């Protein structure tokens, strides 16, 4: 009964018989492939890769800042993308360029540069070139694939839910499998080799992802008058509800990054929590996602995207107070608080995924 309903619901959204359904199916599979390769090139594997080449914790911090600085180039994106009505191949080309720089160039560079300081400098240069150029084109993917998003509220919620669930489960399984594999060869030269093999594998998966996206139909984009740079910052102010949604997203990004990175450092070094405890609790996120996504979906249907986001915020807040009170040996309290956070995060992520599109003026979507 449950499986039949699930099959029907999935089939209704991802049916390859219509161009929209096919587009959504491509969005889902592309998201799953991306979740797969991101395990190998971000998070603990990325930190492991950088430390293989003697990059210090400060160096890792500097490298973390690069995407945020380089993203300012997306200011020029509407001017460049606005020139092309057929931009699919340009977007896909830019994606291959980005990952070639991000994966291949950074993996090959240490073979030629041996000094750790020089390596850090080259990492910064290569990543800046990768993110800087990709920032010009990457907003185009959202505009392209936005055409496939279901218009109906309920269907759209299910679409976001399935995308999140499938990607999350796959990424969790991959993280678990690859962590076990890497831990099994810990301390040997094989561990470094394995991290490098994972990176090359990730690049092959990027090519598969690009191949999948290439199959999606490209609809004509809304004709927009040539956009001046200053208009990127003035047009949105003409749409009050859109601006309020933007304010929420901006503030959320600010809060989300307040202790990004340094909190794990605190858990490991100041509170003495083990990697195993942190990773096992982290993986529970997928279990909570599967168990509670239906409840959050019903809340969204009943209370709206915004109110549900607010409810999740209020429910999340006390756990931050618990985090503030942690002392060494409080793994149990931390695990309980983290799991409440994971439950709330399901609501956050589901609602956040649509906040951008809630009041997005279609005719000005590239600005």
């Amino acid at each position: 009964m449950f499986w039949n309903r699930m099959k029907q619901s999935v089939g209704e959204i991802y049916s390859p018989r219509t161009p929209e359904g096919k587009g959504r199916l491509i969005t889902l599979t592309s998201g799953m492939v991306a979740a797969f390769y991101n395990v190998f090139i971000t998070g603990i594997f990325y930190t492991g890769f950088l430390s293989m080449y003697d990059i210090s914790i400060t160096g890792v911090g500097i490298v973390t800042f690069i995407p945020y600085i380089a993203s300012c180039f997306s200011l020029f994106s509407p001017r460049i993308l606005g020139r092309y009505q057929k931009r699919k191949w340009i977007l896909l080309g830019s994606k291959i360029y980005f990952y070639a720089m991000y994966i291949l160039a950074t993996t090959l560079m240490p073979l030629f540069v041996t000094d750790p300081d020089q390596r850090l400098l080259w990492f910064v240069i290569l990543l800046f070139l990768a993110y800087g150029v990709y920032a010009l084109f990457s907003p185009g993917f959202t505009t392209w694939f936005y055409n496939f998003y279901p218009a109906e509220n309920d269907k759209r919620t299910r679409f976001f839910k399935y995308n999140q669930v499938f990607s999350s489960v796959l990424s969790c399984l991959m993280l678990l499998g690859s962590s076990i594999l890497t831990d099994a060869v810990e301390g040997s030269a094989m561990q470094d080799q394995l991290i490098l093999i994972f990176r090359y594998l990730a690049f092959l998966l990027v090519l598969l992802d690009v191949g999948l996206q290439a199959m999606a139909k490209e609809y004509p984009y809304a004709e927009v008058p040539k956009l001046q740079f200053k208009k990127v910052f003035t047009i949105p102010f003409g749409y009050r509800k859109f601006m309020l949604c933007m304010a929420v997203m901006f503030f959320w990004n600010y809060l989300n990054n307040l202790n990004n990175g340094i909190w794990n450092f605190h858990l490991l070094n100041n509170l003495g929590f083990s990697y195993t405890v942190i990773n096992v609790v982290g993986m529970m996120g997928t279990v909570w996602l599967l168990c509670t996504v239906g409840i959050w979906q019903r809340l969204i249907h009943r209370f709206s995207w915004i109110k549900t986001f607010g409810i999740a915020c209020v429910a999340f807040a006390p756990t931050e107070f618990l985090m503030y009170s942690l002392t060494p040996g409080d793994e149990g309290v931390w695990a309980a608080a983290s799991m409440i956070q994971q439950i709330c995060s399901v609501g956050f992520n589901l609602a956040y995924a649509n906040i951008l599109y809630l009041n997005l003026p279609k005719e000005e979507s590239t600005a």
Partner: protein
Amino acid sequence: MSFNTIGCNLFAFLGMITGTLVSSIGGEGTFSFLGREIYAVQLTTMMRCICLVTLGLWMAIAWRKLTPDDDIERIESLGRRRTAR
């Protein structure tokens, strides 16, 4: 889209800088705060706690200001039907 990408990245960057600045208070060790010995990084969780309550309450109360009109109408009619039942 560009406005959103720039804004989100800029604010994420500001968040990281604020977090790094706050966690550098008092160096690497602990210091006394409200009668407790804490690490500076713990202050960021307190900041998040206060901000999340404020943001959450505001969104729960003022959700109509951010929701498209047709969605408001749908949710309100759903509420009316539930009350009538």
